[in-house]
């Protein structure tokens, strides 16, 4: 089973295996190129030797023999190096968390807890709206009360002014003055009746 090394890819931006493949192919290309250069130089040298019996085919066979050996050792050594690379260099140790995942360590909520949290937030939002509406209603009523109280106070003021008017006209207390008036008028009536009687 292939370990996709996704976490490493998240950190490096490439998969370690691809990186190793890239290095392997580059190294292998160099090995081939250098071998080709060696063969070219040898052939050129042989060209310079008169009546040389070594044919290019022979040299090619030598090259293939050496390359085959080198390639075998190359693959073996590279395999070891790749293993070490993937274990020691291009690996995120299991106990290490990448910076962007720091929050995973701090808090972990289950799906249910997360749902509950969302539900609580929605309830709080509704409650907050309700409280705000309540506040508006209270403020509106306080405004109304101000108006009503002003009207009622105005009415009371009217009564006070009436009383004051009475008082200003010598009648301190309107009710007493009326009683006094009634008594006076009854007295007047009695006097009148007496006067009429005596007159007869």
């Amino acid at each position, binding site marked *: 089973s292939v370990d996709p*090394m*996704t976490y490493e*890819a998240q950190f490096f931006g490439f998969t370690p295996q691809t990186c190793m493949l890239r290095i392997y192919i580059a190294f292998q290309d160099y090995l081939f190129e250098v071998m080709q250069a060696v063969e070219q130089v040898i052939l050129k040298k042989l060209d310079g030797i008169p009546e040389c019996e070594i044919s290019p085919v022979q040299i090619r066979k030598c090259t293939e023999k050496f390359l085959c050996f080198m390639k075998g050792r190359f693959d073996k050594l590279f395999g070891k190096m790749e293993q070490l690379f993937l274990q020691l260099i291009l690996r995120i140790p299991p106990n290490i968390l*990448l910076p962007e995942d720091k929050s995973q360590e701090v808090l972990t909520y289950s799906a249910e807890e997360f749902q509950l949290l969302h539900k609580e937030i929605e309830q709080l939002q509704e409650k907050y709206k309700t409280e705000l509406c309540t506040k508006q209603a209270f403020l509106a009523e306080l405004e109304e009360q101000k108006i009503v109280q002003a009207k009622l106070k105005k009415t009371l003021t009217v009564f006070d002014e009436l009383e004051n008017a009475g008082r200003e006209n010598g009648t301190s207390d309107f009710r007493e003055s009326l009683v006094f008036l009634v008594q006076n008028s009854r007295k007047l009536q009695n006097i009148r009746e007496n006067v009429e009687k005596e007159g007869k």
Partner: protein
Amino acid sequence: FDEIIVDIATKRKQYPRKILECVIKIIKAKRE
């Protein structure tokens, strides 16, 4: 396969932050 791995890893690296930015905007907008 390799491309898929790199693609997923890139998303895992970048998307939480992007989503977080959106969520923070939403929370702010709701608050306003």
